[in-house]
């Protein structure tokens, strides 16, 4: 049984279909990149996978002992967060919220987990700093550490490098790649096709044409050739 299996999924808002007939599976240890034109439904797919939004049709099955709340999520930043007074420690710890259930306070184990993940992301020194004073790259590391507190298995990343400069972008991709090598399955939404074909093992292309397969199959396919030629020109787009 694969970690995640999507069957005949249709996405959209208010019965307006954005994408349909999506079929794909994600196995443990894979690195899936979801690409497609703007407005093709990449972010909507992400929200649907996270149960933030109901699918219009079809089903999402989780397997391999993955519970639906054991997914680590790296969302795009919201306006609210830009001037939010919160320390790095507080934000990372909030990744443990699924573990505490109805218990009002975090336990020693959860605080330890938060510390370990801050260390893993190299932000231990920033633990008492205010989130809004950090650079874009540091903020992403904080949110990644929080996502790691929520999962040991699967990370969903929504445009993890948007707004970052080229150097930090590369660092971020390397970091995600390391996590993947450590055994965490990655699903990433991106419009950076160059990085997608560099790091991912599998590609899901949504839009007018649908494609799902390994990276190599994608590069051989018409959809892939066309899209890479179209989008690949501008680095870090």
């Amino acid at each position, binding site marked *: 049984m694969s970690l995640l299996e999507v069957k005949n999924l249709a996405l959209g808002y208010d019965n307006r279909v954005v994408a349909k007939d999506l079929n794909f599976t994600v196995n443990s240890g894979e690195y899936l990149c979801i690409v497609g034109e703007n407005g093709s439904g990449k972010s909507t797919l992400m929200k649907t996978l*996270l*149960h933030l939004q109901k699918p219009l049709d079809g089903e999402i099955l989780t397997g391999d002992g993955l519970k639906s709340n054991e997914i680590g*999520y790296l969302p795009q930043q*919201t306006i*609210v967060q830009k001037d939010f*007074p*919160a320390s790095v420690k*507080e934000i990372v710890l909030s990744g443990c*919220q699924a573990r505490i259930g109805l218990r*009002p306070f975090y336990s020693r184990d959860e605080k330890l987990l938060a510390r370990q993940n801050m260390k893993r992301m190299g932000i231990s020194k920033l633990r008492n700093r205010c989130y809004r004073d950090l650079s874009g790259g540091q903020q992403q590391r904080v949110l990644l550490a929080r996502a790691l507190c929520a999962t040991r298995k699967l990370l969903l990343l929504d445009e993890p490098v948007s707004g970052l400069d080229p150097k930090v972008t590369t660092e971020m991709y390397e970091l995600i790649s390391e996590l993947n090598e450590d055994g965490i399955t990655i699903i990433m939404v991106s419009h950076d096709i160059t990085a997608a074909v560099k790091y991912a093992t599998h590609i899901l292309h949504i839009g007018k044409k649908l494609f799902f397969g390994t990276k190599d199959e994608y590069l051989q396919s018409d959809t892939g050739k066309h899209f890479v030629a179209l989008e690949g020109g501008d680095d870090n787009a």
Partner: protein
Amino acid sequence: MLDKLWEYLQYPFVQYALIIGVLIALCSSLLGVTLVLKRFSFIGDGLSHVAFGAMAVASVLHFTNQMVIVMPITIISAVLLLRTGQNTKIKGDAAIAMISVGALALGYLLMNIFPTSSNLSGDVCSTLFGSASILTLTITDVIVCAVMSVIVVAAFLLFYNKIFAVTFDENFAVAVGTKAKIYNLILAIMIAVIIVMAMDLVGSLLISALIIFPALSSMRLFGSFRSVTIFSAVLSVFCALTGIIISIIAGTPVGATIVGVDVFAFLVCLIIGAVLPMRGRK
């Protein structure tokens, strides 16, 4: 001057006013941080106008205990308003503005058509700006207010981590299985309760000030959610006490004086925040 203050402090109604003032300032500032950060600064304003409208309805219907009508209506409005945050046809700020002015107009209209006392403008003015009514508080008012405050503070402490999580990133919270809707509902009920309690103290036009000023002042100075919350509560209580004492000595209106002190404190925090560098602050 101290003699005069000491003399006033012997009166039970002054003691009651101080106790209630402190409790309300504490509760409103705790929730203020979350509301400001959730971009709901105006909810206090909106809900207090709803409470004003409900109070007008209650007095027209000659209810002896107005709370029976005012509290449920305000709570329902709070729940509806906080729900409008996401995916609705009318956006949050517009919904608040709509309900706010609508209720205000309706309340005044009702009081005008069915006047319950000869001094209509006096009644309206005291409901809007808080009034002498704080000087007519009874021990029952104090007990009710104390019980409500304990519930609000206890709920806040108990749900502190959840409230933080839902405020900072609602999508993430929902994705990992936190029941954000329930916590938003709890917040809405708490805020409605505080507003109805605060109406006597500062009146319905000035309640927003109690909610937003301490939070904004605190956010100028501190960089973690916990310190912002704690400092905002301390500052709010301090401003309320100072405001009530000044108003007793100088004979100024209670509500407006408290808000005046809050505004002054905000300016002080703004200046300190601008002078001191933000880095390294907890």
